């Protein structure tokens, strides 16, 4: 892998992160005086001034900006209004739960999406294919919060087999993870199918068949690696939707992760927590995009040169 390729991707990632920090900074400054928001209305002006000095709000905007970036880099993102602990600490506590839910959902997306897509492509034009595509459209159009509610109605209220809220046991993981996974699986299935269909008609597939290779081997060794690139793209792109979905799904199922925390923090206007989560999401996105880009280069070395050209 060429170093220029990696460097270009790294630069782009850092730029995105810088923009995210800038975005939060601008929004923070435009939306109002944080001191006025925190302190009661009848606070003496002397104390207000003291707070402003302590937070560096009496300095010039560019100076504030630089100081803001510097403290963000150091992980100092203010204190949660509600908890009175560092916002980063409060948020990081929730990371394992969100990771658990996110990775389980992602695993379901990958397995269900790939299996459905590949089966549909191999059984093209049959009832299985049509059912798979109907499932794909269903996943694409179904709002995640409605699916979540239907799951609760069905599995928690009617059949009473699975718990509907909280994160105490493994049983609690099933409904939110399946909801999160199914929504994205439809799109992945659709891309996998069409990507497979393109590959299945390539000359090298005919060659493989002519060589007398078995179907399983043709598919696993020849078709899937070549069909993988658009699918990896889609999987990478679904991350944003996975994060957004996690916010909704965590809220519906009262799963104690970052998403639920974000929704509560927005409701209570706990701004340090909100900005911490936004920056954390930006970091996650940048890292994932970076990994996806590296995966491309590994899957198909031709992309490196194309990508490097586009990045100028």
């Amino acid at each position: 892998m060429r170093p220029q390729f990696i460097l270009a991707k790294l630069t782009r990632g850092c730029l995105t992160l810088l923009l995210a920090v800038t975005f939060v900074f601008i929004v923070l400054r435009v939306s109002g005086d944080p001191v006025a928001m925190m302190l009661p209305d009848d606070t003496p002006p002397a104390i207000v001034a003291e707070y402003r000095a302590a937070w560096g709000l009496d300095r010039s905007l560019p100076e504030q900006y630089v100081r803001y970036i510097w403290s963000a880099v150091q992980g100092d993102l203010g204190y949660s209004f509600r908890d009175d602990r560092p916002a980063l600490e409060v948020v990081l506590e929730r990371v394992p739960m969100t990771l658990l839910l996110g990775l389980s959902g992602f695993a379901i997306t990958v397995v269900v999406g790939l299996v459905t897509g590949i089966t549909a492509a191999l059984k093209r034009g049959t009832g299985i294919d049509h059912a798979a595509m109907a499932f794909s459209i269903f996943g694409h159009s179904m709002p995640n919060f409605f699916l979540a509610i239907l799951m609760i109605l069905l599995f928690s209220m009617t059949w009473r087999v699975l718990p509907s809220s909280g994160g105490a046991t493994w049983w609690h993981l099933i409904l939110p993870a399946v909801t999160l996974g199914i929504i994205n699986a439809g799109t992945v299935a659709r891309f996998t199918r069409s990507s497979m269909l393109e590959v299945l008609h390539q000359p090298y597939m005919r060659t493989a068949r002519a060589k007398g290779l078995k179907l399983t081997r043709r598919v696993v060794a020849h078709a899937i690696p070549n069909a993988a690139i658009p699918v990896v793209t889609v999987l990478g792109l679904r991350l944003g939707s996975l994060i957004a979905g996690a916010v909704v799904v965590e809220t519906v199922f009262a799963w104690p992760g970052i998403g639920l925390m974000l929704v509560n923090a927005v409701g209570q206007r706990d701004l340090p927590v909100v900005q911490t989560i936004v920056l954390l999401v930006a970091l996650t996105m940048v890292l994932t995009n970076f990994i996806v880009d590296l995966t491309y280069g590994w899957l198909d070395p031709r992309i490196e040169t194309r990508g490097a050209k586009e990045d100028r």
Partner: protein
Amino acid sequence: MSIEQSLPVRKARRLGIKDAGRPQFVILLCMVWLALVLLVAAGADHLAPFSYTEQSLLNRLKPPAFLSGDPKYLLGTDGLGRDVLSRLIYATRMSVVIAILGSMIGATFGTLLGFLAAHFRGLVEDVVMVFVDFQASMPFFIIALAVLAFFGNNFELFLVVVGLYGWEVYARLTRGLVLQANGQGYAFAIRTLGVHPARIYMRHILPNILSVLIVQLTLNFPELILIETSLSFLGLGIQPPQTSLGLMLGEGRNYLATAWWTGVPAGIVIFLTTLSISLVGDWLRDKLDPTLKSAEM
């Protein structure tokens, strides 16, 4: 994010759509449903049997008529004794209005930026593309949540925030298309005549690239509905006493065990509407297919 738009993906996507062999009948059904939704949205005041805020505390949580409820309330009543059908009608109107106005905002803003980038090139283009990249790599939902958290919620802000969803796709598409059109004979010919650039863009180039933008609109529209309903569902969008499909479902969440009918109809309407737009959009895209190729940059 150029790889996202790369040829194989789009082409594959088109293949996938065509190969599904979707019967035209389904498309027709979808169109009927969409027409119905629009009709309900337009005529909400005449169609709704009750006002959406009218409470009748004696008639709380009445089941729908088809579940042996009071025939006066076709879809039953909610926790405050409000008629679910009437609220559903008004909620549909709210969600449709936001989706339509919002689409206009995002499409106009993005297209305008795309034109600016393609016209000025250089620094302007770089700045626009940096923001496009940024937007494309951040989940819009999170940004929307953050903005609503920082600025507090009011209807106009919510409309603009939701509307901006997808602006970066319009900007990127438009920039690519305009760059391409600028190099074509007809644009060159008009420019040689000394016509003002704004006139060239609006009168000549825009009509030529419009079909691609319309296709993008059909892709964007259902997602915009989902963004609005999600935010409203979480209680961070449309605020009571106003109502939207998402908010209705969110409020119905508290009555899942006892009165599912307060929320589930709203969910069904959202699902059927986004489903219909997606299917009709696919069909439309197939119709406009040849022009799609020019969208690749």
